[in-house]
């Protein structure tokens, strides 16, 4: 549905994106994570056809964003980082204008404006002037603008930035709802958001795609990713280190005569550990897998190479 193939972009001599490739399948919701200035907005602008890439190509629904921009623009709904509003317009006039830009006139225009306002929770707000709206409502109008033509692909640049917690919740519910029928890419630097609504995420930093996968895969990919916590008595840590696959054994402390250990291994060592404990008479009272939080994984991945 969305394909980026070796995309690079430079602003003058300064590279903003270097060799970014990914695909997003139909019906997926993908979170685009990265620190500020990482290249998230640039990537999105290339996908929408607003900016041409310096090298590489991007396709949406099979159409090249550079060679067939009209086909792409018809299929994409785009919410830029700050909602593109005309402050002196009323909500109704603005959305009517957007509907016409999208090729809907007359009754169809009225119907679409009414429906999209309902959808984003703006019903009854036709007469309000955009310049007087609060950040949350401006964001809703921005989203309405991206949804009016019911696009197959939604590209949302920080859709929840600047919203209060209730509004964030509402926006997430809305996005989850949209995700059922559409392909969505959304950028954010709020990790909780990705955990809440995106089954898959991509981490971009310094203009490069650093990691991509499900939340769990990202946690595993992070440097110092998965480890196992062990509480054991009657065993020598060196013996545990000698078990097949185990790479690192670090003491964490001790309590009630039990030794607490951090074990890292090439593959899941839990079964081998349990069997060894039974065979050698070790007293094992805890054995659990530990994943870094998404935040730790993110920091680990972003910090890598930089």
């Amino acid at each position, binding site marked *: 549905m969305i394909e980026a193939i070796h995309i690079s972009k430079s*602003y*003058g001599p300064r590279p903003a994106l270097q060799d970014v490739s990914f695909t997003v399948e139909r019906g997926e919701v993908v979170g685009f994570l990265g620190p500020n200035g990482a290249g998230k907005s640039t990537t999105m*602008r290339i996908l*929408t*056809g*607003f*900016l*041409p890439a310096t090298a590489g190509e991007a396709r949406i629904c099979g159409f090249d964003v550079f060679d067939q921009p*009209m086909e792409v*623009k*018809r299929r*994409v709904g*785009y919410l*830029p*980082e*700050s*909602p*593109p*509003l*005309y*402050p*002196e*317009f009323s909500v109704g*006039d603005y959305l009517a*204008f*957007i509907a*016409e*830009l*999208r*090729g809907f*006139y007359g009754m169809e225009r009225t119907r679409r404006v009414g429906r999209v306002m309902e959808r984003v929770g703006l019903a009854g707000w036709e007469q309000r002037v955009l310049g007087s709206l609060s950040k949350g409502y401006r964001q809703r109008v921005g989203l309405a*603008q991206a949804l009016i033509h019911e696009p197959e692909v939604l590209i949302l640049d920080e859709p929840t930035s600047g919203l209060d917690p209730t509004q964030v919740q509402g926006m997430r519910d809305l996005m989850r709802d949209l995700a059922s029928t559409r392909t969505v890419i959304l950028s954010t630097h709020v990790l909780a958001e990705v955990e809440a609504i995106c089954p898959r995420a991509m981490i971009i930093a310094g203009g490069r795609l650093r990691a991509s996968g499900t939340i769990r895969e990202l946690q595993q990919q992070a440097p110092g990713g998965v480890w196992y916590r062990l509480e054991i008595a009657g065993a020598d840590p060196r013996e545990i280190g000698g078990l097949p696959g185990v790479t690192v054994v670090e003491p964490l402390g001790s309590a009630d005569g039990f030794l607490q250990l951090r074990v890292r291994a090439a593959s899941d060592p839990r079964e081998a550990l349990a069997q060894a404990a039974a065979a050698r008479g070790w007293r094992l009272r805890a054995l659990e897998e530990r994943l870094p939080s998404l935040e730790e994984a993110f920091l680990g991945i972003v910090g890598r190479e930089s």
Partner: protein
Amino acid sequence: MTGFWSLWTMWKKELRSYFVSPIAYVFSAVYLFVAGLFFYLGVTMTGEASMRVLLGNLAILQIFVLPMLTMRHFAEERRQGTLEMLMTAPIPLWAVVGGKWLASVTLCALILAGTGIFPMVLAYYGDPDWGLMFTSYLGLFLVSCSFCAAGLFSSSLIDDQMAAGLIGAVILLPFWLVGRANALLPDDWAAAIQPLSLLYHLDSFNRGVLDSVDLYYFFAFTGVFLFLTWRSLESRRWR
């Protein structure tokens, strides 16, 4: 075909922008006030039942005030991030440029219509030459079309409104000044460059002459600046 619908949509939106903000009203009020002043002075000083002095002076006034009408167009769209929305909407860029130009030209036409009171006054007290009146108005309208195009171009160059307005006036000034080149340059040099001047071509309209060369001049002037605007917007994406 969809291009013409988007042109219509853009035109409506720009006109609405003019009329929901104070710009259109303040601009027309100031313009008509100054026009009234020129009219009064022109008629009382020459004693003629003609609009010659008024319309000639309005052309020069427009060099300075029309860029103020157009300066906000692209500068403001860029500042509010709406240019990104327009450029990711399925409409051709020429419709964006054309719609904005048509809207500013429409506003100019409305204001010129507002000066229609002066010919009526003349007709009441004297016997104006209606043919001359028509060509002078046509000339001034073509000047407005040209200036709006140049103003849009300056607005596409820079994000700051005031700077865009000043650049617009600076672009237009040489087209006025070359008409006065004989004050500075040898006669044959001046004669060679004077056809570049807006006033040179406007002059025949003000003498009641409709010459195709003058029409072509204004069409070309407008066309070139609208084209440059389009190219300038297109090229800014590449930086």
